[in-house]
């Protein structure tokens, strides 16, 4: 068992025949991911990296029983790809593409709610279930160790950093999820925490946040009121000046609630362990596990 993906997962890849799509899909397959089809309009009936290609998501769902879509198509076509995936009948969409117009995402989010389809991303590294060997995204496969810690983060390489620190200390992971850095995303930190709380194979959680927005406060609220499992948090951007955009559009400091200090305080108030330094995330988790008597 793990969250979002597992042995029942059957992945189709939208944009699989592109350069990036090919490169990353091969790595997913090497990790063990059950990739059953690729979708590129006009390529139906052919094969690519030994997988059948379809013209539409609907065809891939009907013919191959695909239930997860991984999206690599360029930004200008990604909105259409997201809507097609939701309409086509998958349960979960993971959109790696960055650069989607914000208001497109506002419409997509409403449509997905109506269809009861879950979305990770866009502008995210995707997710990896370590125990179930399902990597649906671009998190490097070799940084993980199998274990019982869930990881949820907004960013890409900072997620890899945190996971590597855990692995170096012999602390394995159950599922690692990068939810993405855009202003409007599908599942947010809070939603992933709820899945971890209900996952029998996760004992504790690492939450990586950033300046901007209020996702970490929502998460802290959930932790305080609903979560029994311990959480270690880290918030990046303590040194970022107010009002400046630091790469992720969602990271503009819009008010005092959006600062690193406000977010850390919210996590502390919710009873979380908080790592003040990005270099201490692994050690803080180790301390949490020792104090809460959880074996790594």
């Amino acid at each position, binding site marked *: 068992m793990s969250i979002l993906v597992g042995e029942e997962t059957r992945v189709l890849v939208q944009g699989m025949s592109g350069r*990036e799509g090919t490169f990353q899909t091969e790595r997913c397959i090497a990790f063990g991911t059950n990739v059953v089809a690729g979708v590129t309009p006009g390529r139906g009936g052919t094969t690519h990296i030994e997988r059948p290609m379809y013209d539409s998501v609907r065809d891939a769902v009907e013919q191959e029983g695909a239930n997860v879509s991984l999206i690599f198509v360029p*930004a*200008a076509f990604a909105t259409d790809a997201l809507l097609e995936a939701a309409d086509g009948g998958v349960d979960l969409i993971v959109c790696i593409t*960055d*650069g*989607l*117009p*914000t*208001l*497109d*995402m*506002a*419409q997509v*989010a*409403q*449509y997905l709610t109506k269809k009861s389809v879950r979305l990770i991303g866009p502008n995210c*590294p995707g997710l990896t279930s370590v125990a179930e060997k399902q990597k649906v995204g671009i*998190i*490097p496969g070799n*940084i993980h160790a199998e274990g019982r810690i869930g990881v949820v*983060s*907004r*960013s*890409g*390489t*900072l997620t*890899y*950093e945190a996971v*590597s*620190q855990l692995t170096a200390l012999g602390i394995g992971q159950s599922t690692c999820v990068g939810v993405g*850095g855009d*202003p*409007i*995303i599908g599942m947010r930190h809070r939603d992933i925490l709820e899945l971890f709380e209900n996952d029998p194979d996760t004992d504790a959680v690492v939450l*990586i946040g*950033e*300046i901007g*927005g*209020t*996702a970490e406060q*929502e998460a802290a609220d959930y932790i305080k009121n609903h979560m029994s499992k311990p959480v270690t948090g880290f918030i*990046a*951007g*303590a*040194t*970022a*000046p107010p*009002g400046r955009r*630091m*790469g*992720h*559009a*969602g*990271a503009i400091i819009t*008010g*005092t609630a959006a600062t690193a200090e406000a977010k850390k305080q919210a996590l502390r108030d919710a009873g979380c362990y908080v790592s*003040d*330094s*990005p*270099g201490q995330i692994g050690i803080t988790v180790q301390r949490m596990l020792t104090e809460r008597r959880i074996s790594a």
Partner: protein
Amino acid sequence: MKIHEYQAKEVLKSFGVAVPNGRVASTADEARAIAEELGGRAVVKAQVHAGGRGKAGGVKVVGSPDEAAEFAAGLLGSNLVTAQTGPQGVPVNTVLVEEPVDIAQELYLSVTVDGAAKSPVIIASAAGGMEIEEIAEESPEKITQVHIDPLIGYQPFVGRRVATALGLDAALARPFGALLGGIVNAFQNKDLNLVEINPLVVTGDGALLAADGKIDTDENSHFRHRDLAELRDADQEDPLERNANDKGVQYVKLDGDVGCMVNGAGLAMATMDVIAQVGHAPANFLDVGGGGTEEQVAEAFKIIVSDPDVKKVLINVFGGILRCDVLANGIVSAYKEVDVNVPIIVRMTGTNSEEGAEILRNSDITVAVAADLNDAATKVAEIN
């Protein structure tokens, strides 16, 4: 992307939002002529991509065309320093000359994106003329927020709801609804990140007028809004940042002395944080991007070392899509083209980190290699 007030007002006007009569001028003579057309009295406003213009001396009510020309002459070609700019300020290349507004009441109105609700949100307050952050701090009960369903868009009932919340006279409710509808439609049709009208003025004879206008566009949507993309004013951007962004590198100049190059925005901010923890300050934020190429790495390196404030460089890369050998090759090729007189600390891990280390060892660059993030921070503090 920020655009100028006069450009924002053109966009709003095209959606039926009333703005004061006036035009933009790039010379003192033009400013004089426009003031004359407006009947002599006018407001002259510096056009810069920064707030706080009024307090910084960038806005003046003038009594005659000559005074308009004189004030414009003082602003044009100068740099305006406001609370939101650095000490060097931003250049004033144009001024907006408008008819003075007869103010009976000032309101605040904006539309932006609420990530938590995944929708556009209207923010309105009867306490106009103040910064919304101040209102939020001092009297949050004076702020009304109404979300717009992105699939339905603006509806008249939304206008009535906001008008009631603002305590507007019944006679104003209908024109207010029309104005708000124009603003929301501009926001949605032009894919904007922010429209802010502060103040929205109720005039002495009961008309509504957008006395100021601020628009932030969504660069991700510029592929379908060429007209907005063309409004870019590169003169308002920091020259180092402009150069970097043109080369696909996300760069923000900061005031410390440790230059840093990182892949990924989150890790870049975390790297700035560790630099601060050892008593130093980052000279910049720099994200070479997930799919950075050798050329982008080389450009990024040149940008960092061309900053005279930089006394040390920390390169922190977690190889993923950007491989460490590509990074190393980029650094080596840039190193040949520029004079580097500052120590370089490199922390590389992830995809092809061994190959990357080998490339740096075989080059004539002296670098201090850090084992992990903590070691990198220690070396930043120790190496001079």
